[in-house]
């Protein structure tokens, strides 16, 4: 501040100020005039042009779905591929009368009458410019038929796209699984942005478990669409340059499975007309060689879509084709657990190799009259452990079971992988069940039911009672037997392949803790007994091992589906097919250098050695190169 303020001339200052306000106002009015002029130019002079652009030319960002990874078997044969196909789409905002259009499409046979209400609902729920897929895959005839009629169906169009295809259909239905149309539930689970261009997702099996790598990464492109929503080639638009931004999708990884499609074919043929499952594992690394559940279904019908009635028929079929028996079916393992129990009994000293029992066809606990029957009514006579495995003598195991005890059974059977999921790379695997005292305490509500009865130990020793195992668990346990206690986690995916670089990542075998039975002598003897099951004069499956060009080992099992009363006889011809015993067989080969371990379960197949064992043999023949039949 200066020492003295100069005298302010208020009048001239006011004049100056008013002058400046007027100047500013003039400039302001001119500037505003420019804006108004611009508005007039846009809204009056060029109105028609912009009206057309807003009506017709719309830049839309469209998601470009990635190509789903292919799935191959162990020898590079395609199990799942993507085939070009035409799908039928409807864009609600372009259809003058949706009801009428759907009715006429139904009349042409392109959609089912029963689908009309569903599509009607869909057309009302989503954004009106978003296409609804009416059919995922049209046949050549349907395409030709619709092409002729197309002018009569504004808003309905054919769209090319890739459809998942399983060339071997039923053979891989349960192992590879299938993809199905994305459901609302799927979209809540998955990243909606990543799936914005995708129509299908893996629902079961390998397709589901490996969804993350198979799907790939979504890409984008900006498209210019006209008033009807149909895409206009970008180069015909003047501002296409500024809009032509895009990002290519990254395709999903290809998968190489350890599965052998030839082995699947043999398994399917063996189980034809039956309910059951076959699982084969390479015992040296846990690779799944075959995994088949019968009856199967055509996974392609899920990929291309089916009508609700078709789906209901599949769902309600009393043969339960959708049920994956190989990993979800829980069956009493029957006598197939005898080799494992024999090893446990030797390890803990509940028996020895020279102990002999006399089998008279039944066994009773001291002080009880209840008879636990042997499968052979007349008995096996005097048997040792080797004979008991070879001939599957139940009484021998009834006797030693009291010394093993249920908790030891539980301890050793769990080491073979029973009672817990194996950890295979597919979803939905069942646990099975290996009972113990503790389990029973927790499993029942009533105090009286929580007590473990001695009789329950007896029947557990022949794989009955509470015991349950899946075919996969039995195959894995068989592989463990073949490897003398060395365990690998079963897996289907052998390698991932980047389709752009061709680079492969191999999945190394995953070791699991060994079975804690270290005396090779025990293994020698039990495995020798399993060998003699198939390849000695008294083995239960000797007919199956007869004349084989290689040595093999196995064990039959027959699991009761229902309990026979004490004095009744089991008469196969008299009882309903559904109540017949399940037939089981486990085997591995070659005996000296195991390369394959198999578990076969045939529901209500009556005889393990008679029905299931030949199936196991056929699988091993195929794998080891001794199958002369045409595939």
């Amino acid at each position, binding site marked *: 501040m200066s020492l003295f303020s*100069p005298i*302010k001339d208020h009048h001239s200052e006011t004049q100056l100020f008013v002058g400046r306000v007027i100047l500013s106002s003039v400039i*302001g009015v001119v500037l505003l005039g420019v804006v108004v002029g611009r508005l007039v130019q846009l809204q009056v002079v060029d*109105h028609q042009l912009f009206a057309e652009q807003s009506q017709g030319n719309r830049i839309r960002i469209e998601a470009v779905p990635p190509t789903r990874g292919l799935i191959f078997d162990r020898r590079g044969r395609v199990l799942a591929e993507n085939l070009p196909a035409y799908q039928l789409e409807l864009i609600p905002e372009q259809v003058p009368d949706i009801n009428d259009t759907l009715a006429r499409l139904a009349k042409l046979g392109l959609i089912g009458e029963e689908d009309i209400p569903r599509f009607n609902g869909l057309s009302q729920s989503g954004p009106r410019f978003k296409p609804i897929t009416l059919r995922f895959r049209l046949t050549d005839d349907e395409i030709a038929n619709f092409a002729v009629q197309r002018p009569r169906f504004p808003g309905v169009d054919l769209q090319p796209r890739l459809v998942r295809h399983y060339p071997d259909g039923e053979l891989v239905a349960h192992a590879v699984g299938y993809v199905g149309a994305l459901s609302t539930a799927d979209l809540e689970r998955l990243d909606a942005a990543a799936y914005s261009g995708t129509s299908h997702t893996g629902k079961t099996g390998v397709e589901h478990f490996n969804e993350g790598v198979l799907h790939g990464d979504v890409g984008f492109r900006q498209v210019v669409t006209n008033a009807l929503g149909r895409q206009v080639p970008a180069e015909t638009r003047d501002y296409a340059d500024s809009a032509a931004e895009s990002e290519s999708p990254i395709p999903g990884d290809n998968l190489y499975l350890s599965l052998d499609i030839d082995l699947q074919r043999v398994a399917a043929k063996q189980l034809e007309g039956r309910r059951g499952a076959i699982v084969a594992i390479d015992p040296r690394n846990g690779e799944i060689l075959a995994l088949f559940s019968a009856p199967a279904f055509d996974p392609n019908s899920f990929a291309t879509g089916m009508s609700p009635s078709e789906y209901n028929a599949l769902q309600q079929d009393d043969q339960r084709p959708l049920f994956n028996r190989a990993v979800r079916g829980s069956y009493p393992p029957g006598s197939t657990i005898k080799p494992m129990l024999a090893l446990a009994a030797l390890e803990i000293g509940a028996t020895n190799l020279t102990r002999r029992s006399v089998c008279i066809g039944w066994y009773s606990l001291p002080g009880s009259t209840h008879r636990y029957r042997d499968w052979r009514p007349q008995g096996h006579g005097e048997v040792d452990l080797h004979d008991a495995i070879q001939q599957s003598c139940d009484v021998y195991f009834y006797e030693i079971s009291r010394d093993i005890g249920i908790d030891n059974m539980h301890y050793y059977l769990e080491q073979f992988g029973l009672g817990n999921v194996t950890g295979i790379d597919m979803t939905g695997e069942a646990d099975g069940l290996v009972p113990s005292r503790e389990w029973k305490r927790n499993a029942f509500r009533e105090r009286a039911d929580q007590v473990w009865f001695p009789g329950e130990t007896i029947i557990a020793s022949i794989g009955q009672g509470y015991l349950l195992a899946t075919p996969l668990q039995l195959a894995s346990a068989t592989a463990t037997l073949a490897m003398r206690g060395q365990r690998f986690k079963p897996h289907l995916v052998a390698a991932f392949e980047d389709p752009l670089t061709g680079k492969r990542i191999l999945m190394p075998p995953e070791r699991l803790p060994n079975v804690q039975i270290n005396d090779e002598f025990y293994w020698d003897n039990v495995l020798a007994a399993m060998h003699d099951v198939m390849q000695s004069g008294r083995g239960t499956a000797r007919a199956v091992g007869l004349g084989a060009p290689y040595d093999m080992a196995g064990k039959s099992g027959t699991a009761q589906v229902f309990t026979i009363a004490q004095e009744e006889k089991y008469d196969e011809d008299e009882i309903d097919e559904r109540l017949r015993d399940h037939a089981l067989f486990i085997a591995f080969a070659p005996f000296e250098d195991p390369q394959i371990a198999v578990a076969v379960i045939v529901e209500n197949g009556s005889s393990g050695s008679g029905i299931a064992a030949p199936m196991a043999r056929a699988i091993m023949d195929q794998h080891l190169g001794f199958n002369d039949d045409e595939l």
Partner: protein
Amino acid sequence: MSFSDTQRLFSGGNAPLSGVGSILQRLYLDGPLLGGLLMVCALGLVVLYSAVAQNMDLWIQQCMRLVVALVAMLIVAQLPPDLLRRWTPWGYLGGLILLIMVLAAGEVGQGAQRWLDIGIRFQPSEIMKLAVPMMAAWYLHDRQLPPKFMDLVVIGVLIIVPTVLIARQPDLGTSLLIAMSGVLVIVLAGLPIRVMVLLALASIPGAYVLWQFMQDYQKQRVLTLLNPDSDPLGAGYNIIQSKIAIGSGGLFGKGWTNGSQAQLEFLPERDTDFIFAVMGEELGLLGVLSLLALYLFVVGRGLYIAIQARDTFSRLLAGSISLTFFVYVFVNTAMVTGLVPVVGVPLPLVSFGGTSMVTLLAGFGILMSIHRHRKLLPH
């Protein structure tokens, strides 16, 4: 239109007192200005309801902000101008300290920092929107006008310091608008026209030459600095869609909430910077001209109040506040119609978001105070 016509047009507030008039007078509110502002806000809320896609929650949120801003205006209107003037240096100093605190906090947070959290979150740059023109007017209050060269240097420093601090946040758009509000004070105070013309003439070729010497990546940086939120390609897309929206609206518009560009989300930032395009599409040329007319009325009434003011401080401040408001309107509408590059300036009192609404209406509160208190300040 002669000056006396203008005076008649904007002098409605001096009409004989009715019932409403006496209430307004007792509350130190200016009727015409309040009426104009309320009409702008009302029209804004109507457009905003459509622009937020009929989301009631967001709309009510904006209504609440408007109520807060109106209360702020009412409070400020009660403060006599000489009180405001005596507070000005302290407010300016406080604002500077807050700006430095924000920068320091931003240094710690390693990123752009505009907000200060002291109980309530606010941007100190909002204080400066009023404090800078007030400080310039305060300095010139009892000096001889037109300002001397040394006065210009001092005011220049008073303007540049907060401008640089805000630009470092970094928020170049806001800092330039704040500098503009200070410069307007000097212009109104009588900066010689030949100096203004000289500066303008020198800056245009100067900027052009500088631009030519810049590398592409430097140009890119300047563009990004001007408009941090979108790349040129994105901005180009915005402008295309905005022009299509306005142009397709025609004379009468497509009807409220019926704009396909706006409702189908072709138009980006439709509820904030580009809300003018929504209005152009849905209410047509007539709609946007009505809004511009309301804005013009508000600015005109503000300038009338400035001319009526009795002392230098009030006069310069009222003029600067009114003209700055006009600059906001012009920059936004020119940007949305594709006349000037996209810079992030919202349409005042209409765009969604309330931080600037309180400052804007507080500024108009000062105008009202100046107008209503002038009789109590005999000169």
